């Protein structure tokens, strides 16, 4: 009670029930005249649509963190002129498929060996240990990502 009495003494220093003047406004019910707003000052003067296929893997990372950039490696396929890039797919198989390269596949988990591909140049890292038998010079694209630029030769 004692503390409360103390507070009541300097109550009017905390609250102004009657203000002398409104020098700012938080909102306004009537909007200002729009006719004088120029084209440039509009937040988005036109509708932006993504160029090309919006479902395609993104070229850029959405979030840039220094030192954590994902390198984009070139993936050269035998009989194909233009090298492809390893995009932000879960694995090499997905990345190749997204760029129109058809590979045989079955389990997509590394145990059947259906997607065996010859690795001519480069190095890959396995995301999970492949269970299928892999001969020397072969990789399983369904469970690996490139560590360096790659040169591949498709089977068949």
């Amino acid at each position, binding site marked *: 009670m004692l503390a409360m009495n103390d507070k009541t003494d300097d109550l009017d220093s905390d609250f102004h029930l009657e203000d002398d003047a409104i020098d700012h406004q938080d909102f306004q019910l009537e909007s200002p005249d729009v006719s004088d707003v120029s084209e440039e000052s509009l937040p988005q003067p036109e509708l932006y649509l993504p160029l090309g296929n919006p479902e395609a893997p993104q070229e850029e990372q959405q979030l840039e963190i220094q030192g954590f950039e994902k390198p984009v490696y070139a993936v050269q396929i035998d009989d194909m002129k233009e090298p492809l890039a390893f995009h932000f797919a879960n694995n090499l198989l997905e990345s190749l498929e997204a760029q129109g390269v*058809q590979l*045989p*596949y*079955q*389990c*997509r*988990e590394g*145990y*059947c*060996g*259906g997607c*065996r591909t010859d690795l001519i140049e480069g190095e890959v890292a396995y995301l999970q*240990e492949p*269970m*299928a*038998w892999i*001969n020397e010079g072969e990789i399983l694209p369904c469970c690996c990502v490139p560590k360096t630029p790659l040169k591949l030769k498709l*089977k*068949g």
Partner: protein
Amino acid sequence: MAYQTFNRNTFDAFSQPMFFGEHVNVSRYDTQKYKIFEQLIEKQLSFFWRPEEVDLSTDRKDFANLPDHEKHIFLSNLKYQTLLDSIQGRSPNVALLPIVSLPELETWIETWSFSETIHSRSYTHIIRNVISDPASVFDDIVSNEYITKRAESVTKYYDDLIEGVTYYQNLGEGQHQINGETVDISLRDLKRKLYLTVASVNVLEAIRFYVSFACSFAFAERAKMEGNAKIIKLIARDEALHLTGTQHMLQIWAMGKDDPEMGEITKECREEVIEIFREAAEQEKEWAEYLFKDGSMIGLNKDILCQYVEYITNQRLAAIGLDSIFPTKQNPLPWINAWLVSDNVQVAPQEAEISSYLVGAIDSALSLEDFSDIEL
């Protein structure tokens, strides 16, 4: 020499070859000579499923409405698969367990064989659900010449090995008089029989199953017999794993480190193995002809199926380091891959993509009359 259920000898488990070493004593899996077999066991166990989990009530209606030549295709494939899994459900155990020398491989063989018995049970589940007289289907398996002809080439390597190993374990190496016949038993010859057996099992699981798989998935592409396709999908997932198992055995032998003699045998048998592949591919093509004798089904005919057999034969040969024997380079049935993917194998209908379930759940057909009693 004779088989011992618990070998009392003390020996270094890591120095044993896969087969024809010491008989296994302690089933221990803390360390392995080949950890791949331990991984295969774990994977196979994680795949566990039961046929009864798949609902086949729509398949019964679908089957009744199939034209006769499609009924023939469907039932013939089921009969053939029943035969193959009857063999696979017991033969790896009978033939390989008496001679295996590594605990992880022993357990892999048992796990592998066990999963084949699930497959056999699921054929019974399908047949029982789809037709009213299952006995007629099962009885035909042993009398149908198109099926028994192929049974012969599937089983002869197993039977040869089992017979040889029985003599070896009872009588040992050397010449023996058995039932008035002179039989030569040598370990080297038994290893050769073993190699050919595993190669023919590899062919069985790599090629022979896939003609039936293709037909089942072709039905399901038309939204027919989808429960059946669901089961076949689960079976295909298991078979892909078993195939990896035999490929590992063949490749471990080929390297010659496990058993130098097996390395030599691999080289000696090269041509013979290619012939086993060729024979199997030709038989499967004949089978395709028998399947489609009264007419093709939508999306699949004899020629495409034969090309598919050639395509997968080439693929399987390449997997064990052999050259292709057929000109076909492209997969003529690329849509099959989507059915063979394991990551979307789900059993419960509410989680699965069985369209009959989804179609039955929501009636999406609307007409203007449906809104006639609504007033705004």
